[in-house]
């Protein structure tokens, strides 16, 4: 299992960079990881809004929210989400939020 060093701490991730030990997630992890996902500088309030939303949804339901649901609940359009997270809600936002890898027909 590859190790990823973020802000001086080592994390176990899979080949695609998804965190393997979900309980090790921290805000520092998300911030440190942002650069790898094409996000420059400090995560903004809007970034956190989406990350927190995804984490809360996951805690409550045990799955990532559907994209339409995500847009509705956060008030962010899909276009805005891609502006915030260039690799998209699944590869970008969920990865920073420390969720497990999306599966299925990708």
């Amino acid at each position: 299992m590859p190790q990823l060093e973020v802000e001086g701490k080592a994390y176990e991730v899979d080949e695609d960079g998804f965190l393997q030990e979900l309980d090790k997630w921290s805000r520092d992890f998300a911030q440190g990881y942002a650069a790898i996902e094409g996000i420059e500088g400090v995560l903004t309030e809007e970034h956190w809004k989406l990350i927190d939303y995804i984490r809360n949804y996951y805690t409550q339901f045990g799955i990532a929210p559907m994209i339409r649901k995500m847009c509705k609940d956060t008030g962010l359009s899909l276009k805005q989400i891609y502006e915030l997270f260039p690799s998209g809600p699944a590869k970008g936002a969920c990865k920073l939020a420390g969720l497990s890898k999306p599966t299925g027909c990708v």
Partner: protein
Amino acid sequence: MAKRKTPMLDELENGKWPSFISDIKQEAEAREKTNVDLQAPKEVCNDLLDILELSYKDREGHWKHGGVAGVFGYGGGVIGRYCDQPEQFPAAKDFHTLRVNQPSSYFYKTEYLRQLCELWERRGSGLTNMHGSTGDIILLGTTTPQLEEVFWELTHNLKQDLGGSGSVLRSPNCCIGKARCEFACYDTQQACRALTMEYQDELHRPAFPYKFKFKFDGCPNGCVASIARADMSVIGTWRDDIRIDQKAVQAYVGGEFKPDAGAHAGRDWGPFDIEKEVIDLCPTHCMAWNGEKLGINNRECNRCMHCINTMPRALRIGEDTGASILFGAKAPILEGAQLGTLTIPFMKIEEPYDELKGLIEKVWDWWSEEGRNRERLGELIQRMGFAKFLEVCEIKADPRMIREPRSNPYIFWKETDVPGGWERDIKDFRKKHQK
């Protein structure tokens, strides 16, 4: 030459069909000798063959589950793959696939293909799939760091975009259409391209409950199998009369023209018998032949194409052409396989396709709102009912939409259609009926 021995794969170099093993070996050899500055591992083809040999031996796949790789800005187009024995096969430890959106009907110039090959030899495995079932050009196998590099060169040098993957509009596809077929009832290539361009956002950024596919067939022969392989199938048809050239019919009967354009020439089926091969095979029995003249009762014709297929030089599609639109085809998972269901019996298919786009957007709005996670349109229609679907499409029910009326009496009525509605008081009932 593969590093290890591949005795089972080697068997597949025998026989007369083109051998994919021989071809991969040839590419492996070319990579040994080339002086191109290869960006993906030189040994990738060898390792791929070795993985495959191991899979033949084990009778199991050796790719890890899933894989999420991609390029910035898009949510699809790349299918990530990792080998589950990376130490043993380091050159193929990551082996991602890129889907490249094909030109309508796969017409190419060698110049374009050479550019694509040059790029893929340098930045990928050199292996492709021409084409994936949905239609994309498949670039088979490269490493994660090469994905953005390939994408940059594709877009900047080849003016070429990726195709779709994931819960998106997948790359639309069409038959050869008016480019080389006299049966084409509308310009499938143009429609396919126009809608691909119109819905680039939906193609690159997953926003749907699940995948969605468009396919465009120029006529009911279905050369791109839209009725079976697309959530929305646009199948060309006409609504006036079949055009008959009586002289050419005579030429078929006289043996001058070969039936089915000679498609059955490999065997002696006897001289052409128009009664037996056309008239009697017509599914609606709407044709007649009196020895001199062919007659068609077009009101009864269901435009199955059989007579036109058999006598293409004598019979032509009508002049008032358009398409039927069917929805809901899908493979078995989860609720069973479905073919498309006729929803729009006839629509004109002409630029700028406003009517078609209007319909598509109504369907998407409904499915995006009501569809469950990973529920195909065909399953949503089954769950909510075809009547509901027609309501969404804002069209009236039509006998042509069903094969036969329902046989069970579990019929739902709308409250507004029933005098008095559903609000009843049991006391009123008791006044006339004792307990």
